[in-house]
């Protein structure tokens, strides 16, 4: 009898396999469209889920945008490792070069650039829009400036000691060290970046739960339908697929919403940030969200939606008769 059963089964299995891929494609096409139509048939509920998830995910993007621009403002105001040594106005070019050579001899100093008064004036004209006022000047009031780059890896104390020694040198009028406040700003940005990362992970989990719960309620409401589908020969993966696609759609739309919100914020911030940079005497372009991030957020969000749907549907459908 067993032989007979096996004989009987063979052709069926072979046929099922031959058509397997086409059936699989058919199923996915149908599930994708069916789940989309289902979401579209409940516009308000769908919009709410997408909105909650989208707002949640736009938050880390917004903070990321703010941090990136704080960092840029800092960068435009000077590098942490540059010490500006203003020489006395009476010093001429050969003296400045001589001093630069002396500094280059030091073990704690890497490079030294000499900025001539003319270069300084040009830079000012470019950076701070004083071109008009500067053109009116009869002679150049600026001194020679040495831009000193300490060797990398020095401690704050070592740099502080060096700055003191530079101040005590003959011919030096004033030493400006950006290190202190830059170090503080960098530390602040570092803390902020860590906080945004943690926030992004938490809100990602929240997004996953939002979709998961929506799908769970949906499956509960469709218990009768699931029973009918099982009776007419649907497999569990087939029944589950539209819910997975629904999760994917929720995630994708929420991700797109998050990106749109972040771009809106970016547009709103661009002007004020540029003015802020100007006020601090720097010159910078507003840093927008990078293209890869704008693409990655909807994809990641779609994945989270799918994952949320997957987690609950596995549990919910096991309960089905």
């Amino acid at each position, binding site marked *: 009898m067993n032989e007979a059963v096996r004989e009987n089964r063979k052709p069926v299995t072979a046929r*099922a396999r031959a058509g397997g891929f086409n059936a*699989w494609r058919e199923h996915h096409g149908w599930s994708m469209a069916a789940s989309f139509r289902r979401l579209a048939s409940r516009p308000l509920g769908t919009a709410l889920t997408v909105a909650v998830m989208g707002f949640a995910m736009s938050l880390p993007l917004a903070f990321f945008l703010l941090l990136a621009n704080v960092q840029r403002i800092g960068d435009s105001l000077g590098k942490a490792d540059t010490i500006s040594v203003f020489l006395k106005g009476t010093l001429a070019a050969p003296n400045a070069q001589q001093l630069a050579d002396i500094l280059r001899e030091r073990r704690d100093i890497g490079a030294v650039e000499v900025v001539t008064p003319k270069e300084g004036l040009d830079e000012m004209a470019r950076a701070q829009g004083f071109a008009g006022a500067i053109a009116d000047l009869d002679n150049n009031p600026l001194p020679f400036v040495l831009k000193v780059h300490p060797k990398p890896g020095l401690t704050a104390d070592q740099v502080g000691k060096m700055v003191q020694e530079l101040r005590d040198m003959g011919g030096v009028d004033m030493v400006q060290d950006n290190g202190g406040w830059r170090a503080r700003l960098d530390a602040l940005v570092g803390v902020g970046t860590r906080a945004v990362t943690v926030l992004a992970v938490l809100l990602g989990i929240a997004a996953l739960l939002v979709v998961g719960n929506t799908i769970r309620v949906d499956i509960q409401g469709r218990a009768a339908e699931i*029973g009918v589908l099982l*009776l007419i020969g649907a497999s569990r993966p087939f029944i589950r697929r539209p819910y997975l696609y629904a999760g994917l759609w929720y995630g994708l739309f929420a991700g797109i919403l998050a990106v749109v919100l972040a771009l809106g914020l970016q547009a709103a911030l661009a002007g004020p940030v540029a003015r802020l940079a100007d006020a601090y005497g720097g010159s910078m372009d507003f840093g927008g969200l990078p293209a890869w991030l704008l693409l990655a957020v909807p994809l990641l969000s779609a994945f989270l939606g799918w994952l949320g749907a997957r987690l609950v549907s596995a549990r919910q459908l096991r309960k089905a008769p």
Partner: protein
Amino acid sequence: MIRFDQVGKRYEGGHEALADVSFGVEAGEMAFVTGHSGAGKSTLLKMLGLIERPTHGIVMFDGQSLAQARTGDIPRLRRRIGMVFQDHRLLMDRTAFANVELPLVIAGVPAADRGKRVRAALEKVGLLPNEKHLPSALSTGEQQRLGIARAIVGKPTLLIADEPTGNLDPQLAVEIMGLFAEFQSVGTTVLIASHDLMLIKKMRKRVVVLDHGRLVADIPASEIV
């Protein structure tokens, strides 16, 4: 096509719904299962649909023992059986067309071929003009006919129906039974559970009678008067 061999069913809680039931149905045959309420008619049909499993004996379908079917095989087996229910079990939020289309989608029939087959099935039950309607817009008789269209659209080898006329008035009931007879005439095996003896007599088909879970009579079509 179908073979029940000393089949017994004891539900959890100890109630014995079927005991020592043996009979067979040939391919292309149409038969009624009848008996009082609680006689075990539904239980018997549920075994063919793998909704319940026998606690004794063997149920064979198309040369295959259903007891050996693994859970993963059930969907494929159910696709070869068209099932009609008293309460029709339609999906109320989908059109008549979409309801009938479902078994074809499940079977992986390409979209291009589905339309033709769905319309052919709707045509057979006289619902082609209603293809875009929701089930709630159909009368009880039409809903039952829609359930039948869904059951036959996948060209099942076996069609089973549990009290398909239970909610219908006598005239509609005769109409529905006539529909089943038509499917038999084109080669489908048909097994119907019904307690409506008057109606069954009119159909002049084989009748299997259950009484408290036991098969007490098996009357061939020729002896129905």
